[in-house]
């Protein structure tokens, strides 16, 4: 077959052309193209890595922030709790103190009252004694005059004393 | 005339066989790709290589049929 018979001329020229192409492109074209592509790829991968790293950093920061916020909240809660406890303690204390004070005041008042009562009684006793002496004096003075009159006078004075 | 038609029948048989084979490859490859789209580029390469091998054999046969003719 004509179509399947290789012709030496074309084989020669094809070899020549292909070798020239291979050598020229290998020397002048492919290295710079491939190098440029490689450099770009590496840059892109570096950039991607950087972006990844930045993302991770941001995430870490976010986590830290969240942690800090959580801690702050916990602290706040603790403080609040403490305050509440303190408040109740103070209240309790105050209540106790107030109770004691009132007790004390009450006792004092009682004591005073007792003392006053005592004083009053003493005074009354004194007065009664004095009055009795006076009465007795008067009676003794009157006794000489009239019997009936004695009784009447004593009664009058006793009545008078009651009014006092 | 008889010899030519014999060659023609032979060529037809070659084409039939090659078409069946390549069709089967294409079918399986597409099924595999739809099942696992993530490795479709690998499947595609394998498909093309397999189809090319079948094609090579059938072209070989065609050339032989031509030469015998």
């Amino acid at each position, binding site marked *: 077959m*004509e*179509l*399947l*018979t*290789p*012709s*030496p*001329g*074309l*084989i*020669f*020229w*094809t*070899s020549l*052309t*292909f070798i*020239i*192409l*291979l050598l*020229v*492109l*290998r020397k*002048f*074209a*492919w*290295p*710079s*193209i*491939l*190098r*440029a*592509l490689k*450099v*770009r790829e590496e*840059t892109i991968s570096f950039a991607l890595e950087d972006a990844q790293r930045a993302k991770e950093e941001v995430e870490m920061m976010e986590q830290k922030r969240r942690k800090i916020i959580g801690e702050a909240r916990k602290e706040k809660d603790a403080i609040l709790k403490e305050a509440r406890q303190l408040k109740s303690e103070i209240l309790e204390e105050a209540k106790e103190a107030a109770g004691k004070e009132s007790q004390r005041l009450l006792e004092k008042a009682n004591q005073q009252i007792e003392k006053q009562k005592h004083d009053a009684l003493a005074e009354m006793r004194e007065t009664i004694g004095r009055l009795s002496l006076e009465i007795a004096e008067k009676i003794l003075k009157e006794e000489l005059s009239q019997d009936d009159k004695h009784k009447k006078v004593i009664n009058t004075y006793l009545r008078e004393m009651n009014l006092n | 005339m008889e010899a030519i038609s014999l060659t023609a029948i032979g060529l037809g048989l070659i084409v039939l066989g090659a078409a069946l084979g390549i069709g089967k490859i294409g079918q399986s490859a597409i099924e595999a790709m739809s099942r696992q789209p993530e490795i479709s*580029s690998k499947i595609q*390469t394998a498909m*093309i*290589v397999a189809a*090319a*091998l079948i*094609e*090579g*054999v059938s*072209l*070989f046969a*065609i*050339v032989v049929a031509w030469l015998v003719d």
Partner: protein
Amino acid sequence: MRILFIIFFLLVTSLNLQASSEHAEEEGAVDAFGLIMGHISDSHQWHVIDYTNRHGHPVHISMPLPVILWHDNQLWFYSSDSFFHAEHPVKIGNDHLVLEDGHFYLTDHEGTIIRDGQGSITNPSPLDFSITKNVASMILSMLLLLLIFLSAAKAYARYGMPPPKGFRAILEPLILFVRDDIARSQIDEDKADKFVPFLLTLFFFIWINNLIGIVPFFPGGSNLSGNISFTATLAVFAFLAINIFASKDYWKHIFIAPGMPFPIKILLVPLEFVGIFIKPFALMIRLFANITAGHIIILSLISIIFILKSIYIAPVSVLLSLVMFMLELLVAVLQAYIFTLLTALFIGMSTSKTEH
């Protein structure tokens, strides 16, 4: 609908074949086979255009190409023009030269062509290193490739970093595709980059020649990548690339077949050995047959108009050949890809240290 169309088409073509065989003797009958063969085989002139001028004379415009012959231990240079319109054979040293059926033959001074019983010419022929149509279009493709990639390289050297613009934006994914999906996916990591320039050159050389072959008018239309000499040469380069850099394991695997019982070794070793040559041979045949078949189909579809001598079939065949052109565009890149991919695959197999 489509089936009806196909049946109609088949009917018409079969009718037409009968018609053409009946009227083959008629004046103006079209020799489709000769036409197709003329288009897909090499030639010593580059056909530009044919037309009939207003005086009714047919005009053929074609570019004459240099003819370079090796005869009597020296090179002879001619223009192919001097053979096409020659009345007498051209002198070459002591012999005479005639161009017959696209080949040069040495004859006597009268230009007698001697044919044997089958019609093949028995005259001796000189070694032909002419710049034929195929060689010219190959040189064109080489110049195009050099222009494209040297300017791209310069642009990369100048701009480098920013994303590519214009033409480089088209080239870059292709280069990356060859580097990543062909070389690096088939060849071991540490060896892949060494083969990338070779694979890139191979890929773009085949692709651009496929594309030039599809262009139907003047600077294209050669059937270079559908020529067995071209594909054979590329297959030889692939063969060299596969075997020169092969690892020891590869040769051991072929000639010793480790781990096999002896009787199987006897069978396997010759098979593996033949396989070394079968691989590039299949590459050669595949590219040749695919591209030639595409050209033949397109030309046949166009020829149908002239075989039927009917203008009404023209839309059908133009539509079909348009579809074929689209398919050929795909085939052009696909075959370049397959040739390169399989070369890379074989290189990967032969260079890998691990068991395969």
